[in-house]
């Protein structure tokens, strides 16, 4: 056995697996937040970022680790490394601002929108969770808000290419008037 082991040593990755698992567990241990909440925070951050930039979801690193605070003591800190593939041309930044200023009701629809998008992102990663997919079904009115997903999710983009583009132009006009 030792003879073959020497020539055909396989590189295992159980140690990497262990590191990933322990990091994951310590995130909720350190913050006292349940794992599911952390997952949602992560997805919310992803959805906010993907409004403005194309991000590489496969390579992203999202951890709660310990970092020295100003007093020198080690405190839990969020460390995220999210690779950006490119900047989106039709950023929805302007419409988002406009809506927030004009109407609070609209701003809630904005959050719903991000919820839906988060869900889309998850599906893209192939790890959609049941509880989070529920609210999306209700939100039919946010269907026309899909343009932000456009360049990140090609499927959606080609599907609803026409109407969203028009809308984003309108919204841009709105802000320019302001």
């Amino acid at each position, binding site marked *: *056995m*030792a*003879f073959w*082991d*020497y020539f055909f*040593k*396989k*590189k*295992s*990755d*159980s*140690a*990497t697996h*262990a*590191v990933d*698992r*322990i*990091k994951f*567990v*310590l995130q909720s*241990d*350190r913050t006292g937040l349940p794992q599911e909440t952390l997952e949602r925070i992560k997805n919310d951050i992803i959805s906010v970022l993907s409004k403005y930039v194309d991000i590489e979801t496969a390579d992203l690193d999202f951890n709660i*680790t*310990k*970092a020295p605070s100003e007093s020198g*003591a*080690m405190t839990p800190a969020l460390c995220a490394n999210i690779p950006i593939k490119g900047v989106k041309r039709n950023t929805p930044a302007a419409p988002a601002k406009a809506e927030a200023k004009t109407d609070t009701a609209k701003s809630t629809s904005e959050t719903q929108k991000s919820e839906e998008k988060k869900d889309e992102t998850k599906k893209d990663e192939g790890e959609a969770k049941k509880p989070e997919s529920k609210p999306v079904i209700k939100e039919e009115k946010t269907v026309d808000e899909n343009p932000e997903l456009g360049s990140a999710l090609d499927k959606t983009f080609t599907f609803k290419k026409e109407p969203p583009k028009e809308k984003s132009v309108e919204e841009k006009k709105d802000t320019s008037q302001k």
Partner: protein
Amino acid sequence: MGEVIVVTSGKGGVGKTTTTANVGTGLAKLDKKVVLIDTDIGLRNLDVVMGLENRIVYNLVDVIEGNCKIKQALIKDKRYPNLYLLPSAQTRDKSAVKPEEMKQLCDQLKGEFDYIIIDCPAGIEQGFENAVAGADRALVVTTPEVSAVRDADRIIGLLEAHEMKKTDLIVNRIRMDMVKTGDMMSSDDVVEILAVNLIGIVPDDEGIIVATNNGEPLVGNESKAGQAYMNICRRVTGEEVPFLDLAAKKGFFKRLFGKKK
């Protein structure tokens, strides 16, 4: 004025007692005046690891309850000029000692010894509270396993809550052959996860079992573990010591035909 060091880990069986015995003995070999205190009341073990089990008359609880003088309870290790052990009580439970009493005891001992090394019981209950109460610094022992690392993280958090001045990490029982093949977390992995200062890496060594069988800590001998423990002792005293190269290669033929460890 002496320094009180608590050796702790959270998880049991990672090598707290072995580490206490070796660090204590090593410091004594470096001509420091050392006392070891076993605070694992009801599960006394440091005495057998040190090979001093036959000489116990009084114990920690006797000292705390005033049944004897501190001096009477300290067992002198005749092999080293300045090494003493205060054994734990085997027939009592953890509530027999309070953190405040431990703190007073440590303060008393500080006047007499350079280092007071406390062997902490596993867990995070009363025994842990007792052990850390009087400590100035902590050595957290862990092994490169998920369970031990998780518990170590919890312990490090609790030590911070106790405002421990200094916390250092010992990664115990590392097997470089497994690290190399990707089947064991490296000490770097563990340090990155726990974000704490590394003071020593101790390789898994059969010599530790032999040493425990004989009641003779192996610190300072020629084995890798013996060298690693001695280096920890020197780092404890403030000396800068480079880490051992544990990955030193076995010979070609030994690897080819040697039995797989």
